[in-house]
């Protein structure tokens, strides 16, 4: 049976770029990033349980520039995945399938996620919450 000449369904490269595509893959990417972040969370918690020295190691890792970059990345990932996750739950409930609604909720997710990230960073770096 010849299988090599079968027609293929249209793949990614054939479609015009739309923001909804980026939002979809970003949901998955931030989800994987947050799953990796759970390692950091448990490391932080276990170190706190072990004692001050172990906690200091984690603290200096997170205070270094690469730790700060990771924390900022996880902050945005959390808020993006959270907001877009609510959008997904709305779809699962059968709401929001009009093309116009797709775009409105999509831009709303960007706006809320970026605002929450910016607000969190403002509080964290201004020392407002001690």
């Amino acid at each position, binding site marked *: 049976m010849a299988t090599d000449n079968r027609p293929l369904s249209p793949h990614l490269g054939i479609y015009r770029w739309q923001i909804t595509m980026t939002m979809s893959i970003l949901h998955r990417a931030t989800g*994987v990033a947050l799953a990796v972040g*759970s390692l950091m969370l*448990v490391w932080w918690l276990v170190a*706190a349980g072990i004692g001050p020295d172990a*906690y200091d190691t984690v603290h200096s890792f997170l205070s270094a520039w690469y730790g700060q970059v990771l924390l900022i990345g996880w902050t945005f990932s959390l808020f993006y995945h*959270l907001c877009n996750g609510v959008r997904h*739950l709305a779809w699962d409930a059968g709401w929001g399938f009009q093309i116009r609604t797709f775009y409105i909720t999509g831009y709303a997710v960007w706006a809320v996620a970026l605002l929450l990230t910016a607000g969190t960073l403002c509080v964290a770096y201004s*020392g407002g919450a*001690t």
Partner: protein
Amino acid sequence: MSFRTPLGQVTGLGSAKSGTAHWWGQRVSALGLIPLSLWFAGSVLQLSRADYITVIVWLHTPWVAVLLSLFLVTLLYHAYLGVQVVIEDYVHTEWSKLASLLVIKFACILLGAAGVFTALRVAFGA
């Protein structure tokens, strides 16, 4: 008319033999993570400049131990369900797919056990 066998109709598990359990588990854990992750994000933001003692005092609070344990278990369960789908989508060799699924599953269980144990140990004052 349906071509399903009577047994297939009763069990309702479909061709994947797991029914809608994965789908529901992902949604219900997502729903639980909305308040839990917001609580956790707010808490670590307040602790961002705290010293070691402040963190331990925070972990000592009973409701913190409860919420933190719930957050860890729900988060790792949700993370496993999500990463599982990613692996199933992109890893096509049967043995490496199975191996990575098992590694992720054991890693999530290990992280959950270590995290919950620590949360309870500190809360009970060891």
